[in-house]
């Protein structure tokens, strides 16, 4: 009782502010709590199972036996073949991301600068093709790119050779870009649409030309969209396996196919688990770093 009398007004003010901050902090946590709880229960826990399995042993018949801590799978992860497959997939995913970005940015910018009514329609028009079945769509692309397909007929009509891009890496790239472009477009659009265009105007008023205004104002402000889109494209592209299988002819093997085959045809779940955990770990670090660089604070 005696203490409270001696508290100064300043102390009280600081006290109140701290309490407000803590309340704010708690509120933030509580808002996200349902999502965090869900992910802990339905993702983190199952993931632990995979981590445990990476130390398991493959039985004679390909089943998984939990007998102590077997490091065989982990040793194999760091051997030559997985590294080779991983690097190859890394390059493919990077190419896919860059190409997607190059084509998606102008596209998202275009949509963002239309009238509000048009924007809604244009966006929906983007998503519609992706509501068809992915597999059937990929086969349709295969048909288009075939040496007997429409593209080929067109090129021959124009006096050229039949098109032979199927089963090459170009076909895979086209297929991957096709499949993942919406994942780049949506975040880009969301970021661009929210732009404070008066800033761009201000730059122009200061005699900057269109390109400089874009480079120094629009692009940096849309960075969160670029970063989000890149992550949403790069990561799935890294693990893609249906597209490289159908359009690329299954050779050379990429990471997605490599991991899947461990769980399926090789029935080597411990190794598949170890591979997955290793890949995820690397990608997680990279993603976190990337987001930080892109101006996101953690």
């Amino acid at each position, binding site marked *: 009782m005696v203490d409270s009398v001696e508290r100064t007004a300043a102390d009280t003010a600081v006290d109140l502010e701290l309490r407000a901050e803590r309340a704010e902090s708690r509120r933030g946590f509580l808002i996200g709590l349902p999502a965090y709880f869900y992910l802990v229960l339905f993702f983190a826990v199952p993931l632990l199972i995979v981590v445990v399995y990476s130390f398991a042993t*493959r*039985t*004679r*018949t*390909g*089943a*998984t*036996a*939990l007998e102590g801590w077997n490091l065989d799978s982990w040793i194999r992860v760091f051997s030559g*073949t997985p590294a*080779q*497959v991983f690097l190859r997939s890394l390059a493919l995913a990077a190419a896919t991301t860059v190409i997607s970005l190059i084509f998606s940015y102008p596209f998202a910018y275009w949509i963002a600068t239309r009238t509000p009514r048009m924007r809604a329609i244009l966006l929906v028009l983007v998503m519609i093709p992706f509501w068809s079945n992915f597999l059937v769509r990929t086969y349709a692309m*295969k048909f288009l790119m*075939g*040496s*007997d397909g429409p593209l080929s007929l067109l090129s021959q009509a124009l006096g050229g050779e039949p098109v032979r891009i*199927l*089963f090459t890496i170009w076909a895979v790239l086209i297929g991957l870009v096709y499949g993942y472009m919406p994942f780049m477009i949506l975040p880009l659009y969301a970021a661009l649409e929210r732009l404070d265009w008066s800033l761009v105007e201000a730059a122009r008023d200061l005699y900057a030309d269109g390109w400089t205004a874009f480079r120094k104002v629009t692009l940096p402000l849309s960075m969160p969209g670029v970063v989000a889109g890149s992550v949403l494209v790069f990561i799935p592209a890294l693990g893609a396996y249906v597209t490289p*299988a*159908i359009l690329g*002819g*299954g*050779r*050379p*093997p990429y990471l997605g196919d*490599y991991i899947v*085959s*461990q*769980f*399926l*045809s*090789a*029935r*080597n779940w411990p190794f598949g688990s170890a591979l997955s955990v290793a890949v995820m770990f690397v990608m997680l670090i990279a993603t976190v770093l990337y987001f930080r660089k892109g101006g996101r604070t953690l």
Partner: protein
Amino acid sequence: MALILAACGNGDATDTTAPPDDDAPPATGEQVSAECAVDATDGNLNFYNWSDYIDPELITAFEEEYAVDVVETFYDSNETMLAQIQAGVVYDLIVPSDYMVAILIEEERLMPLIKDAIPNVANLSDRFTALPYDPNDEYSVAYQWGTTGLGVNLSVVGEDYEPSWALALDPELNADYPGGVSLLNDPRETIGAALKYLGYSLNETDESALQEAADLVASANVTVFDSDQYPDNLVNGEVAVSHGYSGNFFTAFDESEDPDNWEYFVPDEGGTFWTDNLAVPVNSEHPCTAHTFINFLLDAENGAQLTNWTYYASPNEAAEEFILPEILEDPAIYPDDATFENLEAIEDTGEAEILFSDYFNVARGG
């Protein structure tokens, strides 16, 4: 809410389910009903099958005749099915391939069949009893079978081609084929083909032999590794030679513009014959219905209806009376005895399975 849905997903209550990993599988026989009379049913049938592998009319006919429902669930590979079975998901009837039956038996996942409930098993041809993966016919009944071989474009290889794996695996021979070669995206089948070509058994596990086979595949003029699109790729002109399963080639040939331009053959050095089977998981809840369905499918006319729909060969000798002649007489679907001598079944090689997978990856450039 989603958990409620999960509960509603399958209304049946079960007594026990097999544990998810393999520490303590249920003892074989734990869940078997003591008796299943012929034509008895004990509830609806949970049928876990490959997509598009049974005539829907057979299902409807069974449902009407025995007044039960058939709940179909589909898988696209033996291994996906195995994952579910190992996890203890409850089905009444599954359709595993030959090597998978061996695995399931070893893991004690299959219920011994009650022979009294499937008298029609006598309809099976002798060739499909006592197969290596189930030598006493205890756990499985053959469903459909076929061969693996090569489909070729006659205008590329010529009418007088030599029926050998060389067409696919010898780069000097096929260097000029437009489009190259397609091989199956399956370690056992493709490495197996190379092993046969080199004179080994396709179940060979000696590493130097496997290395030879892998090197052969790596140096071959392979454009694509594909286990689904091999007939289409051939008929569309994307490749000139295609490695694949018998039945699928025929539909593709028939529907092409020039059916006579294509042929399928089993190479002289030998190849694979595969058998898909019906089996009852050990934790099945409606084994009597399952047995009745097996018996139903083994009936001569039903067996024929199945083959007439899938265009794969039937192991059912009695059904041959009702199978379309065009199927029976096609040597690619029903190979003659001489060819059959050369065929081997894929057997599970235990720990060596990983080797096939690894060498195959190397062969693909991995």
